[in-house]
């Protein structure tokens, strides 16, 4: 692990924004309603364009709580986006839980996803209440997890 001698520990805040990358606007609206009902303190940030999402994730100083990403999207698809995020050292240091959230799951995709060390692969249930229950389980799981303390090298 390329950690330098001087380290700054700062606890990743679990109240950081939840980033949702979803090109379908109808699906976005359903998710907005669900998050409103669940009433978490986290800000929810939507991207319908995966390239914009990448730009946001790489440029921003914000430390997101987690990323929920669709797979089938124009331009960068979910796998390609994940690859770019994973190859970015600053982002990898933030250790943001990265989850796929897709309408379907093919075995090939699932294997590929886990080879890229994702933290979950969920199929969107078509039913509103089931979708809500899924979202709740995801958030509760990662809230319970020991937070990845964000360590940043103080050098440079």
């Amino acid at each position, binding site marked *: 692990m390329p950690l330098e001698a001087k380290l700054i520990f700062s606890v990743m805040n679990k109240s950081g924004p939840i980033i949702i990358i979803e090109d379908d606007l109808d699906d976005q609206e359903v998710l907005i309603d669900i998050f409103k009902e669940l009433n978490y303190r986290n800000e929810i940030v939507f991207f319908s364009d995966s390239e914009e999402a990448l730009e946001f994730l790489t440029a921003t100083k914000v430390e997101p709580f987690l990323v929920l990403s669709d797979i089938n999207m124009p331009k960068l698809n979910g796998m390609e986006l994940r690859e770019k995020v994973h190859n970015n050292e600053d982002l990898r240091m933030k250790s943001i839980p990265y989850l796929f959230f897709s309408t379907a799951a093919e075995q090939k995709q*699932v*294997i590929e996803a886990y*080879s890229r060390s994702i933290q979950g692969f*969920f199929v969107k249930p078509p039913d509103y209440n089931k979708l809500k229950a899924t979202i709740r389980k995801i958030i509760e799981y990662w809230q319970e997890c020991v937070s990845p303390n964000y360590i940043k090298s103080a050098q440079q």
Partner: protein
Amino acid sequence: MTHGPILVLEDDVDDQELYQDCIKAIGINNPVRFFSRAEELIDYLLKTEDQPFIIVSDVNLPGMTGLELKQYIQDNPYLRAKGIPFVFISTNADKVAVHQAHALGVQGFFEKPYKFEDVQMMFQKIFDYWALCRHVNNT
């Protein structure tokens, strides 16, 4: 939830028993296989035809540590392709270990609670999540 075995890597026999009891208490019927050393778990993974549901691992172990095990699986194309969710449960999670675990792309890191009911709840949360989640063995 798939019926594959739950693999627990934990060198403390008391904790092994505690986990066994908790998993049973929440009505999970998957077989639970215990390993006290990472090397034994690797041997098993290389030979078995089972499709394990999840690996639950301690961090501090004699010999190869939990972090080294996760790294080993990550670096081995055969083991990596099994796509088994890997979750740490640690008694005293120090910051560096938590960070390293997440940098290795771990699928969860939990601190072992003291009370039996809380350990049960932790397992419930872990199994709920991974039962709902798609992975190689249920897709």
